């Protein structure tokens, strides 16, 4: 479980996060949603430790990240997997080598065990074996996302972060990626935090949703409640598309 308590963060005097508190539960797909510029990416980067917060606590199962030394943060990060918006696969390595990389860096396993683990992770994300030897530039965006997920889970992380996992993907591939993240979260009991503004994803896998508006937590709930909340900012966000407006009218 990751607990964020009274977090403030500003850049050059401009307060981007204002007293944000939230609980991200283990074994659930926790989502941070909000409009562009609302502060959701800053919140996620602060939780990971890529941004140093001004005030507050970020507790990884009781371990407060801002109090940790860099060497301890590095150790904690070995329990963290991350799926980046642009996949962030290493260009110079093949698909297989990308997944092997964290294992070679930190796992005490033998080479054969590492290869076996990498193959298992790639199979887990339904990647065809013929793609294992290809370079990231030779596979599609959807496949790159799958490889990135495989790499993120290679070291059996306790915490998984996904930054806009569906950006640049078609609706069908987006759905596959969402289901994959959801499956992996439940299968391995991971604390997953997804940063998204894709309402399809929210409805599909949003088990614990935090809505950020102007740097503040404006609402917390799940995908069953989100249609019935009387919060203007949230409603403007949720019902921005014609499709969801129609869904709302049908429901009414």
């Amino acid at each position, binding site marked *: 479980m990751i607990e964020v308590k009274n977090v403030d963060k500003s850049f050059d005097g401009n307060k981007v996060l204002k007293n944000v508190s939230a609980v991200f539960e283990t074994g659930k797909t926790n989502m941070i949603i909000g409009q562009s510029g609302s502060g959701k990416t800053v919140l996620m980067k602060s939780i*990971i430790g*890529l941004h140093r917060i001004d005030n507050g606590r970020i507790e990884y199962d009781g371990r407060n990240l801002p109090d940790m030394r860099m060497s301890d*943060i*590095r*150790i*904690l*990060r*070995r329990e*963290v*997997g*991350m799926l*980046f*918006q*642009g996949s*962030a*696969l*290493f*260009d110079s390595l093949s698909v297989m080598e990308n997944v092997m*990389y*964290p294992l*070679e*860096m*930190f796992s005490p396993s033998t080479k054969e065990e590492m290869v076996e683990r990498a193959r298992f992770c790639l199979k887990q994300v339904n990647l065809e074996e013929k793609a294992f030897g290809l370079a990231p530039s030779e596979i599609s965006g959807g496949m790159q996302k799958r490889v990135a997920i495989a790499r993120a889970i290679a*070291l059996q992380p306790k915490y998984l*972060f996904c930054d806009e996992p569906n950006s640049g993907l078609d609706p069908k591939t987006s759905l596959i990626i969402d289901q994959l993240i959801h499956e992996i979260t439940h299968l391995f009991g991971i604390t997953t935090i997804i940063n998204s503004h894709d309402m399809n994803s929210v409805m599909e896998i949003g088990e614990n949703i935090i809505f950020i508006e102007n740097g503040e937590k404006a609402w917390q709930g799940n995908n069953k409640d989100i249609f019935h909340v009387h919060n203007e900012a949230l409603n403007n966000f949720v019902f921005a598309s014609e499709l969801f407006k129609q869904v709302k009218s049908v429901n009414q």
Partner: protein
Amino acid sequence: MSLLNDTGMYVLLMKRVLVQPDRWRMFFRQFPKELEKLGLQSLPIVIIISVFIGAIMTIQTKLNSSNPLLPTYTTGLVTRDTLLLEFSSTIMCLILAGKVGSNIASEIGTMRITEQIDALEIMGVNSANYLILPKIVAFVVMIPFLVIFSMALGLVGGYFVSLFTDVISTADYLTGIQYAFVPYYVFYSVVKSLVFAFVITSVASYYGYYARGGALDVGKASTNAVVNGSILVLFFNLLITSLMLG
């Protein structure tokens, strides 16, 4: 203010770079790749430039030393000492600052803007050490060979002039390049090149590592790496020359 800030950030980066690698196995996997990329792939430019500059230097020295009081071997001697003292270390490193510096800055800069460096950090890897140390060590290891190779090829270029033109006789040229040889000049040149190699790779890595934005910014980082790397090479050239020959 910006200079102070850059210097401070450079020192902090080097503090992260110059530590023991997380995994020596990964370091030794990267190291030969960097030797090949930064060292062996620089050979063509070193060969071409050294041969041509050696030849041109021989012709120009001969044309500018037509005084009958000067011994006939002067051209060979001046060509050799210029190659040994300045060309094969300083000028060659300035040329390599362009090739190697832009290569490093654009590679690391692209990794930065595509979040590959963030991915390494999230994994708990010391990204600065993992990415930069093999490059510095590889280029520092390769540079003495490149410099000595350049010296030899420069002399070969001059030899070609004596062989295929009437500018200077082969006998005079060969006498000149062997006359009053000071081995210390080679040592001085190699020491200088080691410092230059460190400066070129570390400065380029610094600009690449802190690149922000998009492709345009990677281009800027690459330009800054070459310009500032070259200025620092010239500065250290002056400093080392004062210390070792002054």
